[in-house]
Each structure stands twice: as structure tokens, then as C-alpha cells.
């Protein structure tokens, strides 16, 4: 079989050309508790992020990653490895994101992904925590003179192909007895261009994306984001089911970032508060008391490192969605004590 050998030879040559070691065999991952071992062996956290979405994950001109989800990757790496730079970012596309996680190419998926029943049950994933409460909202022309979603009758809305956005509108219109037309596009740039040229009266997407779109409009004052949302999109942190230790670590790092905001611990004062604070809550949060880090198999300064790396939850939000960034009102993403939904379990 000369022919088959030649095929193998050429395929082999292509592989060899790309250097030995591109085909990696990793040790199989048994349960429980091996994820941290794998991260430490690699010396980096493999964190699945979006290929690019304003606010959540994007690369700057130097190629460095930034964003709300990226800050979570940094916090996790800091908690486990003590260094927020030790992250291997794996950009994942929408159809491949969960497969990449299941195949063990990443340890955690933080990619503006909605947590749902099927993803948990059918895909065998653990939905550990919600880091962003989003929902489908509307950005419409002020010419419509509309301020609430329920008043949208007879309007045409530009949106993206893919079932849920369109389906949500149809469901919403049917329940309210109104008529909302839709105009479908493949890319948000196209949809927004169509909206600005007057082919439709507005644009619908998740609230985070709406904020990004509004910041690019020629005359932002001519457009308004309507109050309210028509769907629940709790975006969260996904891991493979099975490793309880890893699940606890991811869960409590998220809780630590939110508790830090509650307790007034920030990126800049964390070090100082860890040493000098008299508040027992702060002492336990920052590892001066309680020994929670050791219980999770980490150093006791795990939360301190995470907060120093990313800031507390409010700081992360402000950096990417605050008035100086995409300018999206915090709404449901406020802490429970301020009327929002983020309610971290207590550190004790």
C-alpha cells in the first residue's frame, strides 16, 4: 500500500513541521479533586473566554486580554496559583464552547453563557455561580416616543439570526397582544448599520451588548435603552461535573469578590485591611482568621490574592460597564443590600 503510506507520510510531515508536542497527551482526569493538581502541573489556569465581545472579553492592541469575564479568570488564577498572569486564555466560539470544556481543554468556562437546565443535565456541567444578570433588552429610536417595552406596538426591530432572540420577541408580543416586526442579520454591525439608516426602529440583544452598541452610534442621544427585559439570561461560571473541590473553589472565589464589595475591601486597600482590620468579617474574608484557604487546599491568602488581582465585584463592573466604560446601569447586578440580586453566602 504505497499510496496509504504516502498519505500517512504527508500528514505526518505536516504534523512534524508544526513541531513535536503539538499533539499533547495529558493524563486522564479522575475524580475528585484533580483539577487543581492539573492547573498546578501546567502552571497556568486554562480559562475559556469569548472570542471577543465588548465588556466581557476582548484583546487590546498589545494582544492582552481584558474584560469582565477575564477579570474572573485572573481572580481564579490568583487564588489557585498566586499569580493573576498565569492564565492560558482559550477563546471559544459559540458552538464549540461546551465541547471544549467537556473535552478537558479548559478548567472553567467564563464566557457570557446563560445557565440553563439542559446545559446542566444533558451536558454534565456544573453551573457554579452567576457573575452577571443579563436579559434581552431593546434599544430604540427616541422618535417612537416609547419608554417601556410593553408600549412597543407596530415597531420593527433589527436583531440577529439564531433562535432565542427572535423567539423571545415573538413570545413576548403574543403574551402582550402587540405586534413587533423583526428584521434579521448575521452580524451585529450589519444590524446596527441597518438601524441607523432607518430600516428598523430599534435593535434587541442582551443588555450588556446593547450598551456596547449604543456607545458606537453616531448620535447616541437619538436612541434610548428601554426599561426592563423580556428574558432571563443569568450568565455564569461553568465547570465539568464531578470535581467537588474545584467546584467549591470557583464558587467561593465568586463569593469572595462579592463579599469584598459588601465589606468595602478594594483592590488598593486589601493588603492593608488584611493586616490591620479589626472587623471579624474582613479578617475571615481575607484569610487572617478561619483558615478557609487550607480547607479548600489553597493558601490562606487566596482571597487576598484574588481581590488584589481583579478588585471587588463592584470595581470589576465599573471598570468595564461603569459610566467611564460602556455606561450600563447596574440594575439587577447591584448587591442584594442595594436592591440587586447578588447575594454572596457568608464567610464563616
Amino acid at each position, binding site marked *: 500500500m504505497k499510496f496509504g503510506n504516502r498519505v500517512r507520510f504527508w*500528514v505526518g510531515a505536516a504534523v512534524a*513541521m508544526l513541531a513535536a508536542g503539538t499533539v499533547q497527551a495529558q493524563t486522564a482526569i479522575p475524580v475528585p479533586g484533580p483539577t487543581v493538581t492539573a492547573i498546578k502541573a501546567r502552571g497556568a489556569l486554562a480559562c475559556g473566554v469569548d472570542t471577543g465581545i465588548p465588556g466581557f472579553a476582548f484583546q487590546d*492592541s498589545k494582544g492582552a486580554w481584558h474584560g469582565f469575564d477575564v477579570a474572573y479568570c485572573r481572580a481564579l488564577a490568583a487564588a489557585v496559583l498566586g499569580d493573576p498572569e498565569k492564565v*492560558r486564555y482559550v477563546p471559544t466560539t459559540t458552538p*464549540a464552547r461546551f465541547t471544549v470544556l467537556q473535552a478537558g481543554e479548559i478548567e472553567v468556562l467564563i464566557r457570557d453563557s446563560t445557565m440553563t437546565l439542559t446545559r446542566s443535565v444533558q451536558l454534565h456541567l456544573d453551573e457554579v455561580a452567576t457573575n452577571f444578570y443579563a436579559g434581552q433588552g431593546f434599544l430604540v429610536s427616541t422618535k417612537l416616543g416609547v419608554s417601556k417595552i410593553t408600549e412597543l406596538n407596530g415597531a420593527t426591530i433589527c436583531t440577529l439570526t439564531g433562535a432565542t432572540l427572535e423567539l423571545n420577541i415573538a413570545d413576548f408580543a403574543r403574551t402582550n397582544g402587540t405586534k413587533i416586526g423583526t428584521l434579521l442579520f448575521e452580524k451585529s454591525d450589519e444590524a446596527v448599520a441597518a438601524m441607523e439608516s432607518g430600516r428598523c426602529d430599534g435593535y434587541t440583544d442582551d443588555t450588556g451588548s446593547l450598551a456596547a452598541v449604543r456607545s458606537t*452610534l453616531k448620535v447616541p442621544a437619538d436612541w434610548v435603552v428601554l426599561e426592563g427585559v423580556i428574558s432571563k439570561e443569568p450568565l455564569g461560571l461553568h465547570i465539568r461535573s464531578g470535581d467537588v473541590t474545584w467546584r467549591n473553589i470557583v464558587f467561593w472565589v465568586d463569593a469572595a469578590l462579592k463579599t469584598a464589595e459588601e465589606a468595602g475591601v478594594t483592590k488598593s486597600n486589601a493588603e492593608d485591611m488584611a493586616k490591620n482590620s479589626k472587623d471579624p468579617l474582613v479578617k475571615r474574608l481575607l484569610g487572617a482568621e478561619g483558615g478557609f484557604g487550607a480547607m479548600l487546599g489553597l493558601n490562606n491568602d487566596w482571597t487576598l490574592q484574588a481581590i488584589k488581582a481583579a478588585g471587588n465585584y463592584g470595581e470589576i463592573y465599573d471598570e468595564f460597564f461603569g459610566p467611564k466604560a460602556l455606561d450600563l446601569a447596574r440594575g439587577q447586578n447591584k448587591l442584594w443590600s442595594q436592591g440587586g440580586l447578588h447575594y454572596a453566602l457568608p464567610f464563616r
Partner: protein
Amino acid sequence: MRLFRALFGTPGTAVLTVAIAALLAWTVPSLLRWAVAAATWTAENRRGCAPGGACWAFIRARLGLFLYGGYPPAEQWRVNLAAALAGAALLGCLFARRRRGAWFALLLIGVPVAGGTLLAGGLFGLRPVPTADWGGLMLNAVLSFVAVGAAVPLGTLLALGRRSPLPFVRGLCVALIEFWRGVPLLGVLFMGLVLLPMVLPQGVTVDNLVRALVVLILFASAYMAEVVRGGLQGVPHGQREAAAALGLHPLQANLTVVLPQAWRIALPGVVNVVVDLFKDTTLVSVVGLFDLMGVVNQSLKDQSWLGLAQEGYAFAALLFFGCCLLLSLAGTVLERRLRQRPEGG
């Protein structure tokens, strides 16, 4: 006068000329105003760009990413060196008067080995650069080069196999060619991405780039095989008979008499496949590889540079047009050089 007659010779052409001139007068000035007159060339971020004009500062700020992707800036000289090597070998193939065989060997064997070592690193004290960091135009070039380099011999083998008198070999080659020509590239790329991890044992991962490469090679080979088969059919049967009469073994006859002529006939088609493949490499951006289109798409999401899709896509289109033009030119030069040689046989 000849120009005037060509433009306004008959009422039909006159109307057409006026219509086209009006269309150009309508569109070109506003395009020029956007692209040149009102354009901003240096700015810190999008807010520094004047409204109504192109924001080329965005392209300048991200040029490194567009060309090299995530390749570490300190190591980018390696990419440049590999590109220079490939360019030199290609020029040698096109313009050398003697030892052209040696130049082709250098291009098809020396450049992949040296270039692969340079890009991937890990040998001779070069810092290893994981393929996940490869990107931008460099990734398109690497994918095309490897796919074409492998597809030329593989496609030739398939073409010869398709004309083989042995039914099993013929059937296998026909099946391979027809399968890979009959499935969409995008679909196979997705399959490699989504299905492969399910089939492989837990924990074994195949590099994303290798997956895309294997698919591209098989695709290009199938198309190449048909182009080469066209060339083979263009070689008069007498050539093969003459070679046999001289006592040449069929393999010798193929290598020294038939294939050189077949390749010469097939060359325009081969260049066509190469240009096509180069543009097809942009499809890998859907499987999480950051080729030029992937990087452009991602750059549009940078919060400091939101809403600059026109500039990004215009730049990508110009860059691709330039590269494809160079490829076509190289093909034309090669065709002319081969024609200059005295006809063999």
C-alpha cells in the same frame, strides 16, 4: 480618437459610458472623502477619530495583531525570517536559470523544516511558541503554504491513482476525491472541532491548528487532483508510448516524460486552487483560530475601538487582494518561464 470611438462609438456604448461616469462621479468622491480627506491617521482611541472619516489609527494601533496574531512581539523576527526564507526560495524557483530542481526542493522541504523550527521553537535555544498564539496574516500564510505543499504531491498521486488500471486503487482515489470535493469545508472544520474531542479518549487533545491543517490538506488535495488529471489528459498518448518504446519503466515514464508536461498544462488551474485555498483559510476563524479575519473580527470588540467594522474589513480586503495578486503574478511568471524552455519529449 480610438479611445473616443471605443467610449462613444454607438448610441449604446455612449449611454453606457455616461451612466458609468455618473455612477463613479456619484460614489468615488464620497469614498475618497471618507478614506483619505476626512480620515484620521493617529489617535489614542476611537474618541480621537474625527466623525465622518475613516479611522485608520485603529489599523495602525493593531497592525502587529493583524499580521502576527498573539505571537510574542520579542519573537516576531522569527516569523519575518521564515517569511523571507520562503520568499527567497519562491523567487529562486521563479527566476533561477540553473538548478531549478534544487530551488524547488528547498521550497518544498527546506522551507517547511526551517520555517517550522523557527515558528514553533523549542530547538536551538528558541523559545517555544504554542500554536494557540499563532495568528493574523501569518496564520493564513502558514496554513496555505503547508496545505499547498502537501496537496501538490498528494493531489498528483490521487490523479495518477484515478487513472490507474488497478480497480482497487482507482476506486479508492475516486472515492477520496469525490468525498472531499462533495462536503463543505466549513462543515468538516466544525466536525473536527466538535466531534473529534468526543471520539478521542478523555484528556487526549489534538492541537486546533493541526485539525484545521489536516482538513485543509485533504480538501486542497482533492481539488488539486482534478486539476492535475486535466493536465494528464492533455498529454498526448504518444508521449507515453514513446517512453515505453524507449524501454522506460512506467514510473520513470511518468516522472520524466508525462508529469512534467502535465504540470505545465495544469499550472493555471493550480494557481487558481492556490488562490482559492488562501482565501478559504479565513474559514478557520470559525473554529477558534485567529487568522486575519478572526483577529479583525475580534479587534472590532475592543472597547477602545468599538464600531470600526468598515475600516477593519476594508483593510482585510485590501491585504487579501494584495496577497492574491502576488500569487497570481508568481503563477504568470512561472507559466512564462516554463514556456521559454524548449519543448521536451
